[in-house]
């Protein structure tokens, strides 16, 4: 049976939904194992067992977080060899993709990014050219490395849980030699809202909010949504760059995307047009966003959004 190695970088106190998705996919491909970096809390270990992880690999070095990408790829390469894995699954964050990239070169393995589904034979499905094509791709190498987007599958625990054994993997001494060091780290304050990449609903604001994200935030909170933004809004400094949706920001595929005060430039559409349902609120009926909206409102967001928020609250009593 194929050995499938799931890489989980710094799981913290509880596993993210995206990690549970990876474990669920891993079970459909073969025998799952996990390569971890960072602390392993008891709850996390128990969940990994419940999701069928047979073995937990941990690095011999504790300083992998002090460097950018390279040493983590060295560790993961050693873990793949120790586990004798033929498939590696990671999340689809910028950093995970780069680790996958370097791992691919180290192992001579094909890397496929932005994967949204994996067939049992390893065929990966993804969408390309800003969502205008759906493709299937396969690694032609003995080992395949896949980075999988969040919300690709509904996570399900294994029928029979395991009590995984822990194995330490020697990180090569040369791993940190030619690596950039992280000399300072500023943690960003958690918003209490869902993570943008994983959110089921996203409410996004653009230049039209004119510096006031209040109505966007209120509607997002009423819907339990994450907040996104256009580049015009992040460039203006009205909201952090990590909220940017689009070609040079995040790509999201939520069930619902509400676009408010955003014109819908091609670079913005690139990040959101695979949403299941798109709602647009814009003063200008000529805005390109209306070409792809399932429900478009030509109107002032400062009227429409607060009214919608009130109505949702009213309906919920």
């Amino acid at each position, binding site marked *: 049976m194929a050995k499938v190695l799931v890489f989980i970088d710094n799981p913290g106190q509880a596993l993210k939904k995206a990690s549970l998705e990876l474990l669920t996919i891993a079970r459909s491909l073969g025998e799952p194992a996990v390569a971890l970096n960072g602390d392993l809390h008891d709850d996390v270990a128990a969940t990994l067992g419940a999701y069928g992880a047979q073995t937990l690999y941990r690095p011999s070095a504790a300083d992998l977080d002090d460097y*950018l990408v*390279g040493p983590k*790829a060295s560790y993961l390469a050693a873990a793949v060899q120790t586990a004798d894995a033929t498939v590696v699954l990671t999340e689809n964050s*910028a950093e995970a*993709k*780069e680790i*996958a*990239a370097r791992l*691919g*070169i180290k192992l*001579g393995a*094909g*890397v496929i*990014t*932005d994967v949204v589904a994996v067939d049992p034979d390893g065929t990966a499905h993804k969408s*390309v*050219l800003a*969502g*205008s*094509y759906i493709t299937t*791709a*396969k690694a*032609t190498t003995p080992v395949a490395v896949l980075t999988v987007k969040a919300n690709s599958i509904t996570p399900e625990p294994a029928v029979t849980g395991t009590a995984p054994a822990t194995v330490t993997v020697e990180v090569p001494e040369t791993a940190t030699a030619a*690596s*950039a*060091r*992280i*000399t*300072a*780290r500023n*943690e*960003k304050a958690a918003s209490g809202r869902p*993570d*943008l*990449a994983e959110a089921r*609903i996203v409410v996004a604001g653009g230049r039209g909010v004119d510096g006031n994200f209040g109505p966007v935030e209120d509607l997002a909170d009423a819907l339990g949504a994450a907040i996104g933004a256009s580049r015009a809004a992040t460039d203006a400094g009205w909201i952090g*760059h*990590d909220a940017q949706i689009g*070609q*040079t920001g995040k790509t999201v595929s939520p069930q*619902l995307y509400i676009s408010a005060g955003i014109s819908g430039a*091609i670079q913005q559409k690139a990040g959101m047009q695979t949403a299941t*349902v*798109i*709602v647009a609120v814009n003063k200008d*009926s000529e805005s390109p966003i209306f070409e792809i*909206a399932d*429900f*478009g*409102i*030509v*109107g002032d967001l400062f*009227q429409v*959004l*607060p*009214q*919608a928020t*009130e*109505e949702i609250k009213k*309906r919920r009593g």
Partner: protein
Amino acid sequence: MKIIVLVKHVPDAQFDRHLTGEGNTTDRSESILSELDEYALEAALQLIEARGGEAAGNKVIALSMGPAGAVNAVKKSLQIGASEGVHLSDDALAGSDAAATSLALAAAIRHLGADTPADLILTGMASTDGETSLVPAQLAERLDLPQVTFASSLELDGATLTARRDGDAHADTVEATLPALVSVTDQINDPRYPNFKGIMAAKKKTITTLSLADIGVDPAHVGRSGSWTAVESAEARPARTAGTIITDEGDAGIKLVEFLAAQKLL
């Protein structure tokens, strides 16, 4: 200081883009210099200008790999201000995935550094066609260079490079020693446009064309046959069409909620 900037000729995102032929590669007929590479070029120009420019022996080499038309990306780079251009072009390169691309680019970079190795390799954060962001990291791995990717700021003090990298949960300050590979985001600067002087000056600059034989790469290791991934099928997603559009008459917020309720999204 010698900086190599990687520039890619990509289909213009303003038009519909297509996958064609065996292997489903991108149709490159309406192509431009990848917008995201302009930020890398700008960063390179600023670095050498702060060090006395070309007069002080600094240079920026724009390197593009791609079919004949890709020379346009090199030409545009020269107009913007690169000192010289290099076009890596070989029929055997067609259909290369990220791994094969990074193999060829790494060989070209070694070739260009045979006499004086480059101090810095600069790239955009992603190409606007493939959008995988794999190539910069794979190049760093192949060249055994420190990787400073997604830099939203860049400073150089002697041989020490300091950059900012904005992540989801944290923003990091990253330090590396030259030579290094750096990819920059669109947050780092405002790229300049080619002006008349630049366009005229570009005509006198040299563009070197390199083949795989020139850089010592076996054609079997690149292209579709040398790639480690294969696209098996591609299907155009039906274009999204406009749905219902209403004009607010004072109750659009309520109608919005009714729509969401009907879609079972509440």
